[in-house]
């Protein structure tokens, strides 16, 4: 086996990566090669895009399951909002793959649209759940407060807010060090 099939080339690199990535195994997208549609026949390209959409879909489904579980585990408004805000981290990861520079621009656009559409739907679903709460007789003031938390921590903010470079990357074990600022 040599050439294209010897090491599987970019196709194999991508598919291997997508399988690991979808399964939440360690996988680094930084080293992925660029893909060009004209390199492949149409069936191969379709299979590749199916791998891509499937991996993105799997990650989004897993992400949604984690979010629902985390939200259900909260006992106060702050924790509920915090889970929403923290869930954006997972969305940034999915959107980053959909916009990977190694993908052709037209494909990037379609994948980004697909992902963003799903995120919008999850946000809408959370809003609908609140409407259901009112119909079930939950105190409207509590529902209103939750709606506010939901909108304050809107998942679709991932479309506009750039992910902070690991904002919590402080060393929790570091001793307190300080130098005062003289007047």
């Amino acid at each position, binding site marked *: 086996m040599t050439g294209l099939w010897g090491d599987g080339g970019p196709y194999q690199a991508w598919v291997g990566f997508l399988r690991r990535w979808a399964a*939440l195994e360690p996988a680094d997208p930084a080293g992925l090669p660029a893909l060009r549609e004209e390199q492949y026949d149409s069936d191969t390209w379709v299979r590749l895009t199916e791998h891509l959409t499937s991996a993105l879909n799997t990650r989004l489904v897993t*992400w949604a399951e*984690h979010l629902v*579980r*985390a939200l259900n*585990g909260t*006992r106060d408004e702050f924790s509920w909002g*915090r*889970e929403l805000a*923290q869930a954006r*981290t*997972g969305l940034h*990861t999915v959107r980053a793959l959909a916009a990977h520079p190694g993908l052709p621009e037209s494909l990037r656009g379609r994948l980004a649209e697909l992902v963003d559409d799903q995120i919008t739907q999850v946000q809408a679903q959370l809003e609908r759940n609140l409407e259901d709460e009112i119909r079930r007789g939950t105190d409207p003031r509590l529902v209103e407060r939750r709606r506010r938390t939901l909108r304050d921590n809107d998942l679709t903010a991932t479309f506009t807010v750039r992910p902070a470079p*690991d904002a*919590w*990357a*402080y*060393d*929790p*074990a*570091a*001793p*307190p*060090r*300080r*130098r*005062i600022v*003289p*007047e």
Partner: protein
Amino acid sequence: MSNYAESLSHLDSYISARVPVIAMRTIEQQRALRLLREAATQSRRSSMPFWIYTRATGLRDLRTNAPVQDDRSLAGAMDFAAAQFGSRPNATIVFVDPDELESDTPVTRHFAELARLADSNMGSIVLITDTPIWSGLQRLGMSLRLDLPDSEEMYGILSGFLGDHHGHIPIEWTEEDARRAAEFLSGVTEAECVNLMATIAAKGAIRREDVLGLAQAKDRIFSDLTGLERVHLKQSDYAIGGLTGLRTWLERKHDMISRDLRHTALRPPRGVLLVGVPGCGKSLSAKAIAHDWQLPLYRLDMASIHGKYLGESEGRFREALAMADRVAPCVLWIDEIEKGLAGRDDMSGVPQRIIGQFLYWLQESQSRAFVVATANDIRSLPPELLRKGRFDELFFVDLPDAQDRKEIIRIYHHRYLQAHPDPEQLDRLVDLSEGFAGSDIEAALHDVGEEVVRRGGIDRLKDSYVMDTFAQVRPLSVSNPEQIEEIRAWGRERAVPAGRAAVTPVPGDGGRTRRIVFMDE
């Protein structure tokens, strides 16, 4: 061995033993995590993976701090832990401050199940928390408690702070000063120590007198002083007349309260019990000591200790003593101690248990809380309290002798009349006040002071008015000489005189007579 080193040693053993649940109880997460990282980064453990989970940071590699997964929920971290325990041996996951660990909840049940999974493959969960852990989970592993930094560790923290500010602001402290400050800061957390020091440094310099200032500033970090009342001193609290013997003794002890005793077998001064005639400056002494020693003064009100529920009184008393240890160095004033410790024949057993607690604390506490206890009714004091070794000394405060009265009259004359008495008048007042307690002299001169205000100045007051006022006072030694004599008889035999060695005779007691000489005569 310091508490930190001892905790590290225990943690080290538990990690090597692959104990499935290691519960570390502390109010200082940072120190606990530093301890954990120290244990994890030992070269012999380089192949053992360690992860850490906190609410805000999610799950990260303990050594590199690199994030592990996007899901930052506790449930997500527990799933990750389960996956690791199932797939590889020797995995350790640290959970920082998870909620609801205290009782049988879904969270503790889930942790218990995770611990059993960990146990099946030499995995380990470390729980860092400031609350107790549900016994069902606790029993699956081992626990350790990381107490507040001791003076040696505190010295290291202070040295780090001073090093960071060296050349930045003037620092007058020597190593000895830093050692004393470290002793003073026992009972505070590492973060509180840095906050206190930074507040001092923010003035622009760290002076030598700031060592004592630390003791005063320390109680500002305690928002709730359980069982203790902070007594703020007025200028008038500082002056005390007489009690020469007590004052000489206190001067010797003063040096020891702030001295570095690490290399000796000595313990810091424990305190003094003042018994004797009412109104002779026992309570005033507590305030004067706090002022002279520049230490904060706390009052332990024995009456407020007693509660109506079973064990409540003992609990409150224990908390109050623990708080005294935390706020030390300080002067702990226990006024009329006999009222809290009386009732040894009480069927409830509460007074006996409180006495037991107090004696144990007096004997064992290593804190620099200097107790000044006062008692009027010595008959109700438990004899074991008076045994040598409980208090450093037992002083008997008698009625002031002529020299002490002269000193006391000068103090109150100046305070209430804003003038010093002339020598002749002073001698007469000393003569007139024989048998007076210090409080009698104060009350008489207070009355005179009111008259001065009423008449519009001391010039408009006849000297005879002061003499008359003194002559009209009927001190306790006159109205109840038997009680005074009983107290004095007890004091002569069992205690060290707080004044000059000789006991002042009660009027009429030794056949001495007194003639009141009025200025008009």
